[in-house]
Structures are given as C-alpha cells and as structure tokens.
C-alpha cells in the first residue's frame, strides 16, 4: 500500500518516540491477548485427554459432568476433575490456562465467601491478585473488565468520530445558514446533562435485554451525547481548507461535495483528529468506570474495573488488595494510552521545525 510520504514520515517519527511506541506495542499486545482471553483466563482446560479421547472445552458448548462419568448434568468443574485425574493416575490429564478461574465464579476462602489475599501474600494459590467480596478472582475480573472497556471505548471512538467528523465537515464546507442552524442545534443538544440521561435511562431499561445488548445501549447513549465536541474542530479545519486552491481546483474539475470533503479535505485535516483519538479513549474508559462505580453502568455480574473500585473503597481496611489492584490496573491502562497520545501528537505536529523567537 502506497502511503503518503508525509504520513510515512509521521509514522517514522512516532516510532522514534520510544515511550509512546512501546506503550502502543504493549497495548496492542494486551488487546490481542484479550481477544483470545478464554485461552489465558478461564476455568475450562485448553485441552483434556479422557479415556483416550481428546476434548477442547475452551470454546463451544458446555461439557456436562456426565461426559466424564460424574453424577451431574451441569457443566463440569474442571479443577475438581483435575484433582481426580491426579489421584486416579490412569493416564487422563488436562492442561489448564495460566489463570484457571472464570470471572464470575464465586470461590470460598476459609469456608466462606470473603475476599482472599493474593497468593503471594499468603492467600490461596492461583489467585495472583486475590479475590473480591464473593471470592471471584480479581485478575480474571480485571482482565475481562479491560477487554470490555477497551473495545467499548474503541467502538465509542469510531462512532463519535464518524458522526462528529461528518457533521463538522458538512458544516464547514457548506457554511451559511446550514452552519448556523446546526451549530445552534449542537449547542442545545450539548447542554443536556449526559449523566442524568444515562441514570434515568438505565433505571428504566428492562433487563430482558441481554448483557451485550445493554452494553450496546450504553454505548449508543454515550455516543449520542459525545459527538458534538468533535464538530467544532472539524468545522474550523474544513473552513480553512475550503479556501485553498486545491479545493477550488477540485470544484472546477467537477467533483461533488462528498468527494471533495472526504477525498480532498479530510486527508489534510486528519492530523487534528488523530491527536485527539487516544484522549477520547481515555475519557471513554474513565466514563464507563465512573458509571460502574456509581452503579449505573454494566449490569452485574459483568466484570468491570469500576465495580471493583467500588468494592475496594468499602473494604479499604480489610481487603486493600481489591482497591489497589483495580486502581493500579486502571492507572496503568490510562497511562499507556496517554503516552501513546503524547507521541501521536508530537509525531503529527506540523510545527516540528518551527522555532519561536
């Protein structure tokens, strides 16, 4: 693919900013790993050999206890099964993922449901970051919480930019009455308090909707109230570019407005957009965490960092590992994205060689 030489130079510059570049690589790695999260954090084995037959329970339908000659018809408890395999020692074995816990399973600690400290602090083995108030593995919950949050914010970014850029460019390109009217509409719209709308909406949405559907609705609501800020930047940028000769040339050549906006003007204004992207992601992660913290976000028992933070503040003295894990994870991700953002901004800054006197 032939890239614009200017873009190539910007990308090179981005790579040369080490902090941002490594943060980007690390975040990408995390995202890819989380895509296949079921293979790393799960209470089902990666592979299992029973009576000479092979099973791969990670994806697909549940294997009931009866499959392995157990006396129940619900899903097999593989950790128990592994113990049985080990005591029987007749050639059956299984390979569990590195973190053998599901984010939703409640595990008892000392016989009751209560937070267990991390394994390296004397807690039960396997729980690297300990467990939460009903004994769910914190690492597993953070891991899946991250997956939901990051894909949520990527989708959020894509949608807000799609709407924001389109509307902003149209305003800048057409100008006049259209610009005036849409600007007023945006001003009115952006004065609706977003948080209240979310709170009201989520107290009336029936839970007959599945969890993914509810997450989707939260996304739509957040996008509906967030696309406006992007229009201002795109409007001014388009105004500026519209006055340039190449636009006039395109008009003379007979290009239509859509073609001019998206093929001619947009590539020249995109650097503004790119520098905003990481910060949009940061604000989306923060928003969804805050909503969960307040109890208006994702429905239980969806794993989420905000929900863990909330638990953590209530158990500060008895289970400090909950709040510290959730806090550290959130800060870590936000810092990664912020580093990327800084690097992108620097790489795409046209004034690299400008010096101010």
């Amino acid at each position: 693919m032939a890239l614009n030489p200017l873009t190539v130079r910007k990308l090179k510059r981005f790579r040369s900013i080490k902090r941002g570049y490594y943060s980007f690589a690390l975040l990408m790695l995390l995202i890819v790993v989380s895509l296949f999260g079921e293979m790393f954090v799960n209470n089902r084995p990666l592979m299992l050999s029973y009576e000479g037959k092979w099973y791969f329970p990670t994806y697909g339908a549940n294997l009931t206890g009866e499959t392995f000659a157990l006396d129940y018809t619900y899903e097999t408890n593989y950790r128990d099964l592994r113990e049985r395999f080990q005591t029987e020692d007749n050639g059956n074995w299984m390979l569990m993922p590195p973190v053998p816990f599901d984010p939703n399973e409640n595990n008892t600690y000392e016989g009751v449901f209560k937070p267990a400290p991390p394994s390296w602090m004397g807690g039960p083995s396997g729980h690297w970051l300990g467990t939460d108030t009903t004994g769910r593995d914190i690492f597993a919950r953070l891991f899946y919480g991250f997956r939901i949050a990051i894909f949520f914010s990527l989708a959020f970014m894509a949608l807000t930019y799609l709407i924001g850029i389109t509307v902003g460019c149209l305003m800048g390109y057409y100008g006049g009455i259209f610009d005036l009217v849409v600007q007023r509409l945006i001003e009115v719209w952006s004065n609706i308090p977003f948080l209240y709308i979310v709170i009201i909406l989520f107290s009336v949405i029936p839970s007959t909707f599945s969890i993914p559907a509810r997450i989707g609705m939260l996304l739509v609501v957040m996008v509906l109230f967030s696309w406006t800020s992007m229009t201002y930047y795109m409007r001014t940028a388009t105004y500026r570019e519209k006055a340039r000769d190449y636009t006039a040339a395109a008009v003379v050549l007979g290009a239509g407005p859509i073609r001019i906006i998206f093929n001619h003007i947009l590539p020249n204004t995109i650097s503004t957009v790119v520098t905003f992207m990481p910060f949009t992601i940061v604000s989306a992660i923060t928003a969804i965490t805050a909503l969960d913290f307040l109890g208006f976000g994702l429905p239980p028992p969806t794993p989420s960092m905000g929900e863990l933070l909330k638990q953590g503040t209530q158990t500060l003295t008895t289970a400090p590992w909950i709040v510290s894990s959730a806090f550290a994870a959130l800060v870590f991700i936000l810092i990664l994205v912020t580093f990327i953002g800084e690097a992108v901004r620097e790489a795409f800054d046209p004034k690299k060689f400008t010096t101010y006197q």
Partner: protein
Amino acid sequence: MKNFRPALGLLCGAALIFLSGCGKKETVETVSNTNTADEAQAFYDAHPEFFHTKTMADIPADLKWDNGNDLPDLGSPDATKGGTVNYWIQDFPRTLRIVGPDSNGSFRPWILDDNVMSYASRHPNVTSLNEDGFHYYPGLATEWALDRANKTVYIRLNPEARWSDGEPITTNDVFFNFFFYRSSYIKAPWYNNFYSTKYAGVTRFDDHTFALHFPELRPDIYSLSLGTVPVPAHFYNEFGDDFPERYQWRFAPTTGPYTVSEKDIDKGRSITLRRNKDWWAKDNKFWRNLYNPDRIRLVVIRDNAKAFEAFRKGDIDFFDMRLAEDWYDKLPDDADEIAKGYIQKIKFYNDIPRPTYGLWMNQSRPLVNNRDIRAGIQYALNWDLVIKKFSRGDWGRMNTSSDGYGDFTHPTLKSRTFSIDKALDRFARAGFTKRGPDSILLNDKGERLSVQLTTGYEHYKDVLTILQEEAIKAGLDIRIEILDRTASWKKVQEKKHDMAFVAFNVGPELFPRYWETNHSANAYDKAFLEDGSVNPERKVKTQTNNIQIFASPEFDKIIDAYDRSDDLEEMKKMAYKMEELAYDDASFAPGFVIPFMRHGAWNWLKIPEDGNVKIATSFEGYRMFWVDQDLKKATKEARKTGESFEPAIRVFDQYKVD
C-alpha cells in the same frame, strides 16, 4: 371525571387569557386558616355519628378496668441520666413534621415511633396473651377497659400528662386527632383512609376520660386504641391547606421525653435531640429507667463504610454490625479496640415477626405463571449455601411468609431445600427437558429457562450472584436487575417484575396479615365471576402488595373469615391452612431470616443486664442505654496511654428461637 375535562380546559384557557390581558403579576397569598379550633368544632358538629359528648354517668358501671401496673418494670435500675450519645443518620431529615409529604423517612422513629408515649404500650418482654390480647403497661393513660359487646375501649388519661411545652393533655387532643388525620390538609391519603375506616367513633366524658368505638372487634383492638397518640390541638392553630410548608420545620409538642429546638438543627449536617428534664413521666414505673442521655446527637454520614470508620474512631457511640464483613473481618474479636475492652460487641437474639426476605414470583408473567416452574425455581435456589458461606452460618432459613409470629407460625411446614434433581424434575414437567450449550434448559420450542430477578437491595447483590451461579447447575438462568430502591419498588408495584427480591417489613403484631399479599382483590380488578370461575377479562391490579398476583377463591374465603374472626384458636388454624396453600402455590420462595441484632458499642454506653427487650428491632428502639461519663473519660485517657479494660463480647440468647 371525564366529563369535567373540557370544562377544566376552558377554565384554564380563560384564566390564561385573563392573566395575559392583565399584564402585571398577580401575587397569590396562601391564606392560612387561623381559626383552627372553630374549624375543628365545625367538623365535630358535622359528624355527629362519629364524635359524641356524654357525661361520666354514661360510662357503664360493670366495666373491668385494667392498668397493667403489675407488669415488670423496664430498663435497668442502675441507669443514670446525663451525657451525650452520638449516632449517625444517612440523610438529613427533609421535614420535622410527623405526617405529610417526606415525613415517612428514616428520621421519623427518632421523633415519633421511638420517642412518643402512647396511652399504653405493649409490654415488650411479656409477650404471652391474655383474653384481651397482648399485655399493656400505662403511658398517658392510667387505666382502660374493653367493652366487648359494644366494640369499645374506655381510656382514662393521667391528669398529670403534659405536652412537652407544658400544656395539659386532654380529651380535646383526642378529638383533634381525628380531625387532624382525616383532614385533606395533611396531604396523606393513607392516614385519611385509616382514621375514617378503622374507627367507628369517639366519645368524650370529661377532660380525661374518653372512649374509642370500632366497627369490628379484632383481637388486636388494643393496638388501634391504646397504641395511639393524641395530637396537640393548641399547636396546630394555623392548620390549613399550606400545612406541609407551614409546618415543615416546626417541631410539634410531643408526649415523649426528647424534643428538637431550632438551635439543635444544623441543616444538612446534624440534628440533636434534647431530653426534657421536667418530663412529667420521668419517675413513673416503666419509664423511669429509659430515655437516659441528655442529648442524642445525630450526624449525617452518607456512606455506611465511612460511618463505620467514624464509629471506630469514637465519633459515634454504636454501630449496627449486621454484615458478616463488619462483625468478623473489620472488627474481629482480636481487634485492638475489642481486646483492650474499648468497644463491646453485642449480639442479641430477638423474637419478632421476620421481614420476608425471599423471591416473589409474579404469576401474570410468562414461565413463572407455571406452578411446576415456580416450584422448580424454589428447588434451584441454594439459600443454604448463602446462609452457610455468605452469612457464615449466622442467618436462618425462612420457612413461611409468617415466620416469627410465635404460635401463629406454622409449626411443621418447611421450605424447599436446594436439590438439582427435584428442580430438573419440576422443570421437565413444564416441558424444559434438554440443556442448551450454556447448560440452561430448553423446551421443545427452543425457549430458554431464563427469568428476570428485580431488586432494589444493592447491599444484597452478592447473595443474588451466588444464587445465580448455583441456579445454572439446575439449568435455570436468573437475570439479575439491580435498580435504585424507588425505581425497583415502583416496578414491583406496577407488577412488571418476573421475580422480585424484596422484604415486607412487619411490625411486632399479634398475627400475620394475608389480605394485603394474598387476596384476589389485590391481584385483579375482578378476579372471578359470580359462579367462581376465572374472569377471562380480568386485569392485573397495580399499586397493591399482592406482588405474586395470587388469586384463589378458596384462599379468599379463608382470608375473609380470618379477618372477621375474633377467636384466636380458629384464626391460628386458618393461618396454618393458608400457609399450606401458599406452599403448594409456590409463588413465594422464602429466603433467610436474621434472628438477631448485633452491634458494636463503645464501653461507656451501658445496657441493661439482659441486653434488650424480647421484641427489639434496633439497639436504640427502647432507649434503654445510658452513658457512664466517668468511664468515657477513662476510656479516652486509656486510648492515649494504651491501658486496657476487660474485653466485652456479649451474646444474649435468652430469646433465641430454634
């Protein structure tokens, strides 16, 4: 109503035109009625069938007067007066009124329920029954008598009785009580209805003797007569349509010992109750050992976890530690404050009707309209695991919706216990036979066995997730919906839930109520046709407490008889029968009962030797505690020097029910 709408619209339109034509702003004065006494008198005159005035000679001579003076005293004779008790409230009260909008908040018990003195009170320790029901000890009244034939209770007020502002309490206040609570000014339809339908009349004989008449003779007639409080007629002399605003921040004179004055209100932050040192009943039996601290200071703390830390610092004097986490983890027996004896841990087993924590299934909704599915759900709920591993064995299992009523609780009926096999069997009868890829059962049409569970109890979220995880084993998918408390209750009242996790809070009453929760009149507008068959066009009735949409002609008959009966033995049999029918219907899945209260309290807060009263529902309810001010000083000193006291972990199980 419909006919009025166009007329109303026209009027509004006319008013608009008029106002807009006027041009200048009209100032509308809310005119208050300054002549309340006359208005009250006019009300009495207009209702001669309700308000009677007679002479002392009209009192029947053969009445058997009772005064309850032989009952044991309350509280501890060691109690001393004085000092300040600090406690917390979650929200600042939105009004000091005792009735009307916003008055039914969590602050109400502090100025009303736990503070006032009624004519006579039910003895909280002697809970046996005599021929008239519970035992009562005197408060405002010196003696009382029940006239069964005329469904009337005669009451003689203590001539010493005074309002907190020094005015004497007379039968005029008793009359005013009915005018007040039946008035539309108070904006409280529940009270309007209650005082219009539950009473048949009131008779005044002299300033201190009156009688209350009832439409029917119920076994709990004393709670409606002796258990009530008059209303100070002299205080509400500006009683009018603006009552809610006008009296918003005025503290009405009370029959009880604590009052609130303007200087004790720090809006949004704290409110202090001050003991009336000249309270007329301060030396009377039953009352002399209660209400000991001079001040009760209530500080607003928004968050439970924060309040706990304030307690631990000593900023508040006691704390409800019902959560296992608080009792075992945050303040374990070997914690510094406990081991050194600064804070005492008090666990008190009470014996009261239990709040009905459980799952209420709505029979008008798909899936749960099938009795096999309802029974299957009950078998799929692992309450025992919740009790054993979440409450750490402290809670008990609830068996019926009327646990804790003593003899009225069904003696043998037990709720269904978790059994995957039985659950699968019941679900199979309803057509759910094979498991889907996620272990959830499917029927022939491919529908999943998935039911929604609504609740407003955010603090019990963990209980529900445990139930949810366990139910999957039985092939049941529970979708948990946690709403804001008000939103959730509204949804349940609109009967839009599949299943709801809520509890009805029940007072320490003589016998359970069934009409509210189980009568078909509260389920449908017209549940059955004349011939007893199901009305095909019936509509679900909203805003009632029959949240199961339970309707059975057989049950209705028993409830009607039960509500008319004055024979306790017969009522007991009917209650058992109703519980058995409710069990078969399976629309209420009993959850757990919390058979105790447990608190942490700083060591200077002293309590009687036997802990509390049998029917106590809160540490502070009967105000039996007192402050040992010397010990408070010593403890504060000791916390600096590290000196220790005898640790106190006290369990009072004399009222424990097995």
